[in-house]
């Protein structure tokens, strides 16, 4: 098997972040509609989340903190690195769509999945450019919206991962973080043969738990959960409804590839965002 490329590195202590991407978008004032956030987990963890009525922070080795991770709008979770827990997510995904309005200031916003970037999933393009911190968009949601406008032009194009076609031509050779971002983000484009939507999904992290009530707008789960089985599933659905959470189901079959579930979930979330006027 081919050796996995080394991932992006964190900046050495003591050096200031450059935030080149944030600077490039800083002049944009006409911001697109605020998009919801999407947290994808495995069904087993999802049931725990509903049981304790909140998405709890977890220890993140990369940033040395307890964090809750979500992506702006996109249910991106394609795993290729063999991490144990990712197997469950890709085979049994459950999705929480979160309205960020009451969550306060995020801990950080990055223009891609930082975990995937640092584990080398995006390959060489990110490795030969800048340290991770140079891609930092800044800890606020407006910075994420400006980035959507600068890089994609619209929420709909962002959702599909399609960059503005003329973007590369606007960059100078010395704008290495932006150039590196384009190289990585291209992996998520619709036209890519095997698009990896994490490559341009804006990662938003919070350093506090996210209560479901009042924040989560939609849960997407396998359709087995709407049946009685031995009586426990209906109770789970009723619990969602008691928390005021809308829910939708997707068709889960053991002989479907994980990409099938990803596409189904992507469609369901797109329809939801569309109907709520976000796309």
């Amino acid at each position, binding site marked *: 098997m081919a050796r996995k490329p080394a991932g992006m590195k964190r900046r050495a202590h003591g050096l200031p972040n450059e935030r080149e991407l944030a600077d490039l978008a800083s002049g944009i004032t006409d911001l697109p509609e605020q998009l919801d956030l999407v947290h994808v987990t495995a069904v087993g963890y999802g049931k725990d989340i509903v049981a304790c009525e909140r998405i709890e922070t977890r220890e993140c080795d990369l940033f040395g903190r307890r964090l809750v991770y979500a992506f702006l709008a996109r249910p991106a979770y394609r795993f290729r690195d063999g991490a144990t827990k990712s197997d469950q997510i890709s085979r049994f995904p459950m999705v929480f769509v979160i309205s960020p309005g009451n969550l306060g200031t995020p801990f950080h916003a990055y223009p891609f999945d930082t975990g995937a970037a640092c584990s080398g999933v995006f390959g060489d393009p990110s490795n030969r450019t800048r340290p991770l911190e140079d891609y930092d968009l800044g800890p606020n949601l407006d910075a994420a919206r400006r980035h959507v406008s600068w890089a994609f032009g619209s929420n709909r194009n962002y959702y599909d991962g*399609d960059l503005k076609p003329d973007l590369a031509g606007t960059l100078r050779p010395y704008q290495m973080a932006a150039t590196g971002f384009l190289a990585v983000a291209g992996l998520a484009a619709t036209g890519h043969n095997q698009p990896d939507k994490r490559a341009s999904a804006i990662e938003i992290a919070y350093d506090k738990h996210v209560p479901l009530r009042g924040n989560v707008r939609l849960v997407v789960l396998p359709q087995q959960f709407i049946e009685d089985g031995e009586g426990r599933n209906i109770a789970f659905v009723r619990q969602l409804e008691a928390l005021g959470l809308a829910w939708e189901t997707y068709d889960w079959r053991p002989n479907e590839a994980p990409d099938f579930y990803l596409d189904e979930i992507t469609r369901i979330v797109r329809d939801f965002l569309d109907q709520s006027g976000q796309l």
Partner: protein
Amino acid sequence: MSDADDDTGTLALVGYEKLADHGFALPCFAQAVGANTTYAARSAADARGNIAIAGFDLYDPAQLVRLQAEQVRPAEVGAPWLHVFLWQERAYIGTAADIWSALHPVREDIARCAPVSLLALAGEADLPVGGYARDAFLWLTHRYGRERAIGWRSGTYLRGIVVRSLRAQLGDRAATGPVRRALQDVHLVESEAGLTLRLPETLATAAGRTSSAFALLTKAARDFRLVVTSIELVGPTKAEPQRSLPADPVPPVPPPDFDLDRVRQMVLAGEAPPADWRPFILALDFQETGLRQLAPLAGLTALQNLNLWNTRVRDVAPLAGLSALRSLVLGGAQVSDVAPLAGLAALQSLDLSFTQVSDAVPLARLTALQNLTLSNTQVSDAAPLAGLTALQSLDLGG
């Protein structure tokens, strides 16, 4: 999922990972009982739609439930897919047909509590599913209300039939980014008039291969006494329909004996379908058949989608009156004169590749055309096409 896989060895079905406490679980495989390394199987459908094991991927279950020794089954690439179906804390192992038989004593219980899972199992076992689909719909209506049940029917069940059929026909192309994105834009909208299928143009014109999906949809919709009343073609990434094709003036329900497969057989035998069936015949696929004569199609004025790829058709004159026709595939047929098509004002997609057609003049009046394939024809002068302002894609290759 890991990239590592093992496509060559014979493994054994040694356990499973639960999704819920009932219904299908994820089968887990290993070299031997007790082995630490486990795999999940990959599937592939053969030409008849039978699902087989296509390979194995490394898979690390969070909670592997190991099978009893007597339940362990050998499994190898190419063998029929092995399922694990859970009911009342018991795991049923085998092909879907095996499990269906084994569940005989408890099937009524499952129908009462988990009809969607029972429907899925019946489908995997290739059984007639109409009754189970209706039962699932009624159960959902009772449990969650009609709106939710209708959402399941059109958004999950019927849409799933269309998408799976399209994926099977598209083969490897279905896994590419643009096609995956287009498949997400397949929608079914249910109204009192019937069902509307919203289909991305890119799929509608992908070798004209939507006919089988449409036929399956029509058949499955009939189980609910629903009729597919129109097809809307949408742009590749647009949510709103670009062109809405008007609903056909059809009565709400087809005759009880209406059968699209029978229509196809009749046409192949040179026989015209009964008059009261014709308003319901919206799509037909004769790809790779020996069809020569199109006369039986002459009265099918509701027909919107016709695939004649690689047939023996020479004379297309019987198509001249098919005013509803939106998509026509003649690629690989023995046709050379397309003058009879000149009046098909609704035609949006036309494939004439690999034919002896040399004159493009008759196409000049097809002003609704958006996609035209003339590759590997004798056409050397495309000037007559200059007035086709709706044209988005023109293939003159070869």
